[in-house]
């Protein structure tokens, strides 16, 4: 492995990594709130709302993410009549697929967090005169996020790696650049560089979530 060569390909590859990071940030920023709303819907006393939330979670978790991405990028425009209005920018379409998919996983994680909270917490809050809404905001949510934190960390790290699926819908990103360089230069080095860049990203995330967990240890 030649050091100059690594420097030479690192430029374009970091360019590709920018797409990866951008996708990651967009998906995290939107799928966590989405997951949270879906969790509340799933818990709702309004049956149709709860049913919708559960169906959504079931479909998104029960089918391959790759299928969902292909559906949003290449399937939507094929729908009769409305299809022509659904030709989205490839990156936007893929982001949508990721957000909806990860939203479902986050919803399940938060639902588990809610279930783990002892019913004595609700009772204590009620006897102290807090309304249902105040109890949710001040007592339940903080605990739910704390319980969910390790699982959210895991999911985030999965997302970093899943961004490589952009390759399959032909959005240029890190892996795409690596593959191009491998084909062009007849060397395995670009794959190794790509691997190191992914490792750096997951390392940063791991450290970030470790710090969060320490911060919210409640000790």
């Amino acid at each position: 492995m030649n050091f100059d060569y690594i420097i030479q390909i690192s430029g374009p590859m970091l360019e590709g990594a920018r797409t990866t990071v951008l996708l990651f940030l967009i998906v995290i920023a939107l799928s966590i709130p989405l997951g949270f709303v879906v969790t509340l819907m799933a818990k709702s006393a309004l049956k149709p709302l709860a049913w919708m939330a559960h169906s959504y979670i079931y479909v998104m978790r029960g089918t391959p993410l790759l299928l969902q991405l292909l559906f949003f990028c290449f399937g939507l425009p094929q729908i009769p009549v409305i299809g022509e209005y659904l030709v989205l920018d490839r990156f936007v379409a893929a982001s949508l697929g990721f957000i909806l998919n990860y939203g479902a996983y986050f919803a399940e994680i938060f639902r588990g967090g809610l279930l783990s909270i002892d019913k004595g917490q609700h009772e204590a809050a009620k006897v102290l005169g807090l309304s249902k809404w105040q109890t949710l905001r001040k007592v339940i949510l903080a605990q739910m996020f704390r319980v969910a934190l390790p699982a959210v960390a895991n999911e985030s790290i999965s997302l970093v790696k899943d961004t490589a699926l952009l390759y399959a819908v032909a959005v240029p990103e890190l892996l795409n650049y690596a593959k191009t360089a491998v084909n062009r230069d007849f060397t395995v080095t670009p794959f190794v560089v790509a691997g190191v860049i992914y490792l750096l990203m997951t390392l940063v995330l791991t450290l970030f979530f470790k710090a969060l967990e320490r911060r919210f240890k409640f000790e």
Partner: protein
Amino acid sequence: MNTMIEVKELQKSFGSLEVLKKVSFSVSPGEAVAVIGPSGSGKSTMLRSLVHLEEITGGSIVIQGKPLVENGKYAGASDIRTITASMGMVFQHFNLFPHLTVRGNLELAPRTLKREKVAAIEAKSRDLLAKVGLADKADVYPSMLSGGQKQRVAIARALMLNPDILLFDEPTSALDPELTGEVLRVIRQLADEQMTMIIVTHEMNFARDVADRIIFMDKGEIAESGTPEQIFGSPRLERTRLFLNQG
């Protein structure tokens, strides 16, 4: 006002299981009532009904002259809130909020309900923590406390809202024996200050010492009630005697 709590023919069923069968009693201001009885006799259900943690099936509950339920019909939601606000409750398993410090636990409800100034709330939480002997634990999280300390925090938290009535559901049952004393001492002090209290307990010596009146519940009914001397000295019923002797 001559009664704090007036319960008439309270009935409660869970499905087909009849847990409380026409329970009636009343509590006067400043009175400390201890409720004893075998497991499953309905003590917790009775206590929880008073603060609307259980919805009763029939009968009446009147708190300081205001009906929470009358002949099975509940007051409106906002009346229920005002009426139950005059009561505090201490649970067997403390139910402290783990994500808040001790001070945070005390101040959450008053700060959220905004009926008092923040400075007054802070001063009160400081005073109450001192009163239960935990002034040095204000900034600690509940996970760092012993069971006895947790329960004293729970009592202080209940007192933050100036309740007229305090309800205790087996406040020492989850504690190691050597830690019950510190909690019972706090409750005893409240009794000395004429706090109106109902205490469900298995601590017979404590009940005898502190309570003005003992209620013995069995199978969803008040089997017998009277002064500690009567109940412990010369119980009227065979089943009371049996219950007291096995403990």
